[in-house]
């Protein structure tokens, strides 16, 4: 399985690089205009590759299951953020190098009206990219509402790419050749097509496959479970630990969906899925007001956070509402009659806020399951673990062959960072632990 994932990662990386670099090297084919100096040619190459990288961002966020599966959605989204900084860096370096080498192409005409359109589009493209990066990096400090930011993010990206392409076509040079021009315009249409795939084609598909809320269940810890059944179709199969994008009170065409892990067993025969959502403000606060019979839309399943080799001991580490994917794993294993050893380390604030507490205790009778609760605000007389899940807690409750266990971690970023560090110190190889960050978007 790991070897297969490695091969898939290598193939997708090669395809990604090919999509960035092949159109650049295609410019060297056929008849060429006389070459300029090295600095100009290098800066132009950076401009082309920077634009191709920006265009492919639509592919990274297009939720292609085959692409995201070997990596995990969180890695893809983090890569998307990091690579966009690189791409913008390359695009900005393009004019900076031209300035540095004193390129005559940057000489300003006497009147603003004489500035060629190709140059105006370059300014528009770079301006949009800089604005896009600023609003993405400092959205919270700028107090921009998530939905508004998401919309502006898409619009700015579209403007940057369209203006970048118009700059290239307007400037001519390599793209004077009709074949090369067609290639680059075709690439741009393909990138924008990826956006339409997510925002138009996928919502249309979801519209034809709605779900209906059959139960709204109040859980411990200010948490609500939505039980949903496919309405007029068979639904989808998911692996325990995966997640879906939920659209409530809106059409699937709405720009912002909300990712939540499935908390139900993957063995439900009727296509039933459950999502357990904690009230953390914004959208999540309103979930408890959903009503039975309400129509909802689900896009999924996604994610690589799922149980693996049945012979290994599985250590599930949940912080707060990070229990939801673990619950799906535990319920599924119980339904399958799977007897692999399981240890659940479940961190929460208080005894009363432990979502699924009673059911977990019942599930212990059907599984080889050991549960360790770790409370940061324990009640009086509590003799269990307190504080946070740390390396010391691992050492107290796990058999010492630490590197032989399979670890699944889901919870707040701070907890996950601490646990990943602890596992590193315990010499657990990277391939042995799997994590799901619920703040990846």
């Amino acid at each position: 399985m790991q070897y297969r994932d490695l091969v898939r990662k290598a193939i997708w990386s090669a395809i990604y690089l090919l999509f960035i670099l092949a159109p650049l090297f295609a410019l060297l084919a056929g008849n060429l205009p006389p070459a300029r100096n090295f600095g100009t040619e290098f800066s132009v190459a950076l401009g082309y590759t920077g634009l191709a990288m920006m265009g492919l961002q639509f592919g990274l966020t297009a939720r292609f299951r085959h692409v995201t599966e070997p990596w995990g959605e969180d890695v893809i989204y983090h890569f998307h953020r990091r690579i966009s900084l690189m791409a913008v860096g390359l695009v900005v370096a393009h004019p900076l190098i031209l300035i540095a080498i004193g390129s005559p192409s940057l000489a300003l005409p006497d009147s603003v009206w004489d500035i060629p359109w190709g140059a105006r589009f370059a300014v528009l493209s770079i301006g949009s990219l800089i604005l896009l990066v600023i609003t993405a990096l400092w959205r919270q400090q700028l107090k921009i509402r998530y939905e508004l930011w998401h919309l502006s993010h898409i619009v700015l990206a579209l403007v940057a790419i369209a203006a970048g392409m118009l700059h290239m076509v307007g400037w001519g040079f390599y793209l004077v050749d009709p074949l090369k021009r067609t290639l680059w315009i075709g690439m741009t249409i393909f990138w924008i097509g990826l956006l339409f795939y997510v925002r138009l084609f996928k919502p249309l598909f979801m519209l034809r496959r709605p779900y209906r809320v059959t139960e709204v269940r109040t859980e411990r810890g200010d948490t609500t479970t939505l039980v949903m059944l496919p309405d007029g179709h068979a639904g989808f199969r998911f692996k325990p630990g995966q997640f879906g994008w939920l659209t409530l009170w809106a059409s699937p065409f709405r720009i912002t969906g909300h990712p939540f892990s499935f908390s139900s067993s993957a063995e439900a025969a009727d296509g039933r899925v459950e999502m357990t959502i904690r009230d953390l403000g914004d959208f999540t606060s309103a979930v408890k007001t959903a009503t039975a019979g309400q129509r909802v839309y689900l896009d999924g399943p996604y994610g690589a956070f799922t149980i693996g080799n049945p012979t290994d001991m599985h250590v599930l580490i949940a912080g707060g509402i990070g229990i939801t994917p673990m619950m799906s794993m535990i319920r599924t294993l119980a339904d399958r009659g799977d007897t692999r050893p399981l240890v659940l380390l479940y961190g929460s604030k208080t005894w009363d806020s432990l979502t699924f507490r009673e059911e977990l205790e019942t599930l212990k009778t059907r599984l080889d399951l050991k549960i360790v609760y770790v409370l940061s605000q324990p009640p009086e007389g509590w003799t269990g673990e307190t504080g946070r899940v740390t390396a010391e807690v691992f050492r107290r409750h796990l058999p010492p062959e630490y590197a032989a266990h399979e670890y699944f971690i889901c919870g707040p970023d701070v907890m996950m960072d601490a646990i990943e560090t602890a596992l590193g110190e315990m010499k657990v190889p990277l391939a042995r632990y799997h994590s799901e960050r619920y703040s990846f978007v």
Partner: protein
Amino acid sequence: MRRLFANRLAVATGVIVVVLSLVFAFLRVSSMH
């Protein structure tokens, strides 16, 4: 750790792209002679 992996992947991609952009410029300029 997974974020670190994504960071490294992005840096590696950036390095490959810049190196091959240099190769592009070199090929272009060397074809002049």
